[in-house]
């Protein structure tokens, strides 16, 4: 079940799932995120933070991808409860 409130991926708590809603970055960064599989409706799991709190590793489409806080803040998701 999703609560339909848009939050940036960067504020998804560790261990929680979300569904991708929109990406607000532009240009090559946006393209890269789409290529990595961050398209609407995709399930993302926040796996773990690095020892210093940033970047965070996310599980997406079977792969583990680390994103810095900036990149993750341009991806909006709805948290799954």
């Amino acid at each position, binding site marked *: 079940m999703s609560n339909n409130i848009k939050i940036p991926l960067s504020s998804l708590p560790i261990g929680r799932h979300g569904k991708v809603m929109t990406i607000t970055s532009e240009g090559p960064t946006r393209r*890269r995120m*789409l290529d990595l599989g961050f398209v609407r409706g995709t399930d993302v799991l926040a796996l773990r933070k690095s020892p210093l*709190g940033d970047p965070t*590793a996310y599980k997406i489409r079977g792969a583990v991808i*680390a994103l810095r806080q900036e990149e993750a803040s341009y991806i909006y998701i709805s948290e799954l409860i």
Partner: protein
Amino acid sequence: MGLTKQSMGTNIIKTMPTLKDMHNENSAVIALAGNPNTGKSTVFNSLTGMKQHTGNWPGKTVATAFGSFEVKDSSFLLVDLPGTYSLLANSAEEEIARDFICFDKPDATVVVTDATCLERNLNLALQILEITSSVILCINLIDEANRKGISVNTDGLSEILGIPVIATNARDGVGLHDLKSAIYDLTMENTQTNPYRIQYDQSIEEAIEKLESLLPSPDPIYRRWAALRLMEGDIDLGLDQDTQHKINRILKDLNMNRNKNKDLIATSIVKQAEAIAKQTVSFKHKTKKSLDDRIDDIITSKLFGIPIMLLMLGVIFWITIEGANYPSHLLYNGFFTLEGYILSMFRWLKIPKVLQDMLIFGVYRTLAWVISVMLPPMAIFFPLFTLLEDLGYLPRVAFNLDSFFKRAGAHGKQSLTMCMGFGCNAAGVISCRIIDSPRERLIAIITNNFVPCNGRFPLLIAISSIFLGGLVNSQFTSLIAALTILGTVIIGIFVTLIVSKIMSNTLLKGVPSSFSLELPPYRRPQIGRIIVRSVFDRTLFVLGRAVAVAAPAGLVIWLMANISIGGDMSILDLSANFLDPLGKAIGMDGYILMAFILGFPANEIVIPIMIMGYTRANMLIDMESLDALRELFILNGWSYLTGICVMLFSLLHFPCGTTLLTIKKETGSNKWTFLSFVIPTVIGMGVCFIITQIFRGFGLA
């Protein structure tokens, strides 16, 4: 990437063969594409064996490998394309891979995928199927997938995609025969393909139809692909003005927005990869936390992440030092015995005494020193390091340290390029190609020298054992040496971050570019291959380079010590005296400084030059124990301060000749090459000067 024979030392600067040189009219060209970390290079190596060459793409700083292999009576040229996740985005690697498949038209393209993560890999495979119908899908790492309870229905996949699908485990040679047969059959046109066509949204499909009719190419696959690229508007397809004009009008009439098109296109591909994976991949135990996850929980944890990293590095150094001790002595004794025979032979041949001395004390002993001190640690360090590389640990290092690099305005992958620097700084500089942003790449190139390379380890080990090892019981000497090197590395990282930060705020102003890093699954390393690769590709090669430099350097220094101008002072003493005031000011002396200067071609020879200078080219040093070396140094006025300053200056001084040439080649700029020389030297002198003042101020030296 990685340290190989081709990626280290002077081979880097030689002209590389291009594909045209390699291509022979009779052989079919096969492109090897795939995501990074799919075992693509293992597939490449297994197919081509020893018949490989590394080259550069013309005009691009992306290296690739070509190789050849035979099936039945036909020969094939295999071209290893850069590992990419997609062909849509705008990195140099993706452009190369796309252009090669699209315009060089290989006879077949093999797409290597990771069976444990097929959905994501299919994204690239589907994009390639849009460009060419002559594709084979290689599902690699099938054994690992099975272990993880993942099974792939290859027949089903082959049916959906309309191309041959071969499951392989390239590491153990499983499935390679089938892969070769499939390549043979496809290029001999024994196999017909019926490639899967990605279905796009209504609006995109309508536009494709309209645009296709305007394109002159007779190839329907190319027309469809070109129509899609026209909608994205990123690449120039070389169309005439009239056609381009018509196309622009159609796009305008359809009210199309480039960015929206890009989104729709990328999304459709991802979604269809997902749908195909759903039909063909099944997971046995979904919910259980994987072993990889549990390892990462510890290795990247807040509490243990960084300590574990330092511990591993320290243990590697310790094993290297401890393990190298015995073989080093053995080698040195061997050389010593051999020297007796050579000397007897020289006497028997009635070779003049001067020539005897020159060859024995100048050339031979320098060589003996370099080989016996360098070979054992390298033969231990390289395999251990390659092991970490093959396990997949290095991306975790980048993950753990990224925050520091971000704060320094640098790229997160800079830590990976630094890891390469441990082996050889020239290789580290080359590896900076993995960083797309030119600003961050330059920072990584200029600071790579702050990682002590293998050639500097012997100096660090020797000096730390002599001056700090003496503080403790002799059985802990190796431990102290390992800790000292670890400390040196930490200082190096610290300086790297500070310099990166300063450059980000001055010469190379800018904000960090976007960064994403894949943490690939851990892989079972191939111990046999690691040993062969590290010994032959790395150790012997680096040693060969050191030897090639050591022999002439030994000769030069011997001549300098034995030729005097005017009075009775040799050139060596004259130069050392000249450098002495500067040397003293930074805690060292003229001989040491001269050794660093003469060691410019390769850092390995710094210590032998020092010894020759102090012994007036007699090199009468007994390597049985470090005591003789300690005595020699103390006799020449060394103190703890000297030891510390020599180690620091070894870390912080100009890069070696090969590294500088590589920097020149990679940046194409005299300015950045010059700065790469000046920045570390100034820092090194400054740091040593300050430490010297502090020591003297407190009356410690």
